[in-house]
């Protein structure tokens, strides 16, 4: 369910009034989500979900309790608050507890598009059927989704803080597979405005590239120069989430800690051409204006020309270290270069073109050694040209090595990784000496 700012404020103020604790904070969120899912050229899941949820945190001095509910009658709201207060009374004191924030000012990020919220299941299904029809003509099997959602979230506390944000999302994906099972490709696009999302073009790209990827050949796993499409690099860059915590770095238990347990903040860790920021109000990303505690989103440069410029400080750790608390509300942007993808490929004598990665996991969090696989549309590059499709490969490579081995980049563009549906702005990149360790005989 989507509530207006006024409706939300009324509920949250009512909830806070029910609280007898010394301090309280409440969050309210809701969404209307629809999705059409198709496989083997037929719609097989088509759904609509409506949800709303209230979360309450109360504290008696530094003894705190949390409770949540999705029922909004008076009795349910009262019980939710009472449950949190009962927990707080039993809870041991938390020496790291901080009282709620004073009221804050938030940037207005216009991320709600009415058309996205209102598209009907019939219209989405019709668009999907247009793609499927095209797939039939090309003798392909198509699989994918077309989804739209409208959501809101708000935060309020006993100090008078209030924030409200409303946003929409639309996403379409198509995986095209050749009938002989030797070619496959997935294309995806995401936008807050469904009118800017052409599901047919996404489907067509998947079909065209799947046809080109038929009959892949094996290549000996080894170190290769790799040209990554932005989607593939985005999946790797996301692991940044796991090492930017300042406390873990200071306490010597992170990749961001030196061997003797000190933080690497301020030191050069990656190549000079690596700069990564959060720009929550970037017009192509339109991320959130505040986090779930009500901390305003900020533009933060995490990595500046290879130097660790900032780490994430929770409110507690910031207070302890005399720093400003951070918010991490998305809007990740990695700066790129001026080359085109064609120029990247052209510059490689022998290498591998990787449009997409899959199932990436940490092998060693202290060295950022990652493993994962290529998935769909991998090609051998020889003498600056895409020579022929390759069977998928497993890699074992450190993100630190990758971010020290980028030799060319395209301009950043919106990219969504394979596993985590978080739009980011990431360039395509040419990376030298990327290590593949085995063949995955899967298409």
């Amino acid at each position, binding site marked *: 369910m989507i509530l207006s700012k006024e409706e939300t404020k009324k509920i949250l103020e009512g909830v806070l009034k029910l609280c007898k604790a010394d301090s309280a904070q409440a969050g309210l969120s809701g969404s209307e989500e629809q999705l059409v899912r198709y496989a083997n050229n037929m719609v097989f899941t*088509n759904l609509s979900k409506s949800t709303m949820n209230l979360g309450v945190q109360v504290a008696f001095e530094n003894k705190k309790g*949390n409770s949540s509910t999705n029922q909004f009658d008076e009795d349910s709201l009262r019980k939710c608050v009472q449950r949190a207060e009962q927990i707080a009374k039993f809870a041991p004191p*938390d020496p790291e507890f901080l009282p709620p924030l004073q009221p804050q000012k938030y940037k207005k990020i216009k991320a709600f598009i009415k058309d996205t919220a209102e598209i009907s299941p019939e219209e989405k*299904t019709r668009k999907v059927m247009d793609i499927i029809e095209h797939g039939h003509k090309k003798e392909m099997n198509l699989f994918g989704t077309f989804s739209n959602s409208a959501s809101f979230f708000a935060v309020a506390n006993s100090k008078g803080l209030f924030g409200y944000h409303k946003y929409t999302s639309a996403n379409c994906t198509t995986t095209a597979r050749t009938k002989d099972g030797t070619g496959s490709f997935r294309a995806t696009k995401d936008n807050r405005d469904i009118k800017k999302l052409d599901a047919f073009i996404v489907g067509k790209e998947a079909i065209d590239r799947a046809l080109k990827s038929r009959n892949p050949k094996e290549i000996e796993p080894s170190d290769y120069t790799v040209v990554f499409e932005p989607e593939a690099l985005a999946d790797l860059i996301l692991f940044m989430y796991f090492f930017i915590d300042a406390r873990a770095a200071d306490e010597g*238990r992170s990749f961001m800690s030196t061997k003797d347990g000190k933080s690497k903040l301020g030191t050069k860790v990656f190549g000079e051409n690596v700069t990564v920021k959060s720009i929550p109000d970037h017009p192509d990303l339109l991320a959130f204006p505040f986090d779930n505690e009500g901390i305003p989103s900020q533009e933060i440069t995490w990595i500046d020309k290879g130097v660790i410029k900032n780490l994430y400080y929770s409110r507690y750790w910031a207070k302890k270290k005399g720093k400003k608390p951070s918010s991490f509300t998305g809007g990740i942007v990695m700066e790129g270069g001026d080359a085109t993808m064609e120029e990247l490929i052209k510059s490689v004598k022998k290498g591998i073109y990787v449009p997409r990665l899959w199932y990436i996991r940490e092998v060693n969090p202290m060295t950022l050694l990652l493993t994962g696989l290529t998935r769909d549309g991998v090609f051998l590059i020889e003498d600056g040209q895409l020579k022929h499709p390759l069977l998928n490969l497993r890699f074992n490579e450190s993100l630190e090595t990758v971010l020290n081995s980028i030799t060319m980049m395209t301009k950043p563009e919106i990219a969504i990784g394979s596993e985590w549906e978080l739009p980011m702005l990431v360039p395509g990149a040419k990376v030298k000496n990327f290590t593949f360790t085995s063949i995955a005989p*899967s298409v």
Partner: protein
Amino acid sequence: MKDLTDLALDAASGQGAEYADIRITRYNYQNIFARDKIIRSISESESFGFGIRTYYKGGWGFASSNVVTKEEIKKIAALSVQIAKASSASVKTIVPPAPVKAYVDNWKTSYKKNPFQVPIDKKVAVLLATNKEMLKVQNVIRAVSDLGFESEHKYFASTVGSYIEQEIMRTNASATAIARKKGEVKTRTYQVAPLNIGYEHIEAVDIPGNAKRTAEEAVEHCMAAKGPVGKKDIILSPSHLALTIHESVGHPTELDRALGFEADFAGTTFATPNKLNKLKYGSEIVNFICDRNQPHGRSTVGYDDEGVKTGKYYLVKDGVFVGYSTTREFAPMIGEKESRACAYADSWSNVPILRMANTSLEPGKKGSPTLEDLIADTKDGILIDGMGSFSIDHQRNNFQFGGDAFWEIKNGKKTRMLKEVTYQAITTEFWNSCDAICGPEFWEQQGVRSCGKGQPMQRGQMTHSSAWARFRNIEVGGAQK
């Protein structure tokens, strides 16, 4: 509830649905998380709502809402049918879902102590005692532990005439020590099996009693020698095998994957229907059985989320691939006459999807080797315990796993701890290299609490049981540069 479920079914039928079902479900959760000597979070939450699934001329529709009123139920039923009608426009060949009998029944998880009635201070004491014991061990820099409880109270009704009420209770816990010594940071986890059971599980596994050993092994892990590179025999514990079974057996034998329905996200499988009863999945001692009636299994229920009565079936028998996990929607697509009751939705708000059942590697027969026998019979190997890094390709062929702790085996003896061990294999080659499985006395339940699948993604939970097992000549250390 019957008045509400009847209202939904009547409303859907009135709109033209050929079939409809409704689940009205209330979830309650309690989670307690401790870091070092601090309880960082105690939370309780409830979630209540309903989802209505409808079928019309080969097309499915689903709609859900958290507003459980008569007006909303009628509205959502109509929306579900509207969606099913939109879906049916894409259907060229109708394959009707497998038939299901009508059941009127109540089913409940078997447990002794309702965890929600155990005082919070008692649970807090368990976690703080655990962390305190861990922090006593020199070089342990962090201790984290948690307890989690879920209850799911579900009413299912369908137009075939079923009215099924089920109460499911879930209990889980874990405790991890992080140690730092000589520039190395390593962890060790006391991996408590997540089960459908009551608080008696927490009392039985004695988390504080295992804290010291766990912490000491974290420190030892920091000092361990780097694992070797090359072919080794590996002996895997039940707490490790759970994830290997999940990824390389449970997922490849899900029929929706085999038919391509997960191609856009989770992937497909090498175990295609033309390989049924032919593919040598593993060695002759390898038998995988699925059982949603397994006592305390994480996916154990009386009926699945399509109202199909749960039971047992083999995926692999005497090493041969013999069956799939199925649902009503997919079973008829390979000519099967009934579903194996694998439909599951992680919330009232989500549509049921095909989920692997509790999937177990059967133990060796009576007289099979003990763990001591296995070690004594291994000249050059590695023993792996607990879950660690895991990655597998989208058709479930090429996998690479780490673990939580590793020990070298030399000339029949467990010698020293190792670090940074991974092994990599092709699924069928791996299971065909299994030459020994310990007997029933070593059989242990472990499981997975957070398996992502579906679009929108849902969280699956299931138990994977096994005894210790040995695999010959496996490639290890490939992750090392």
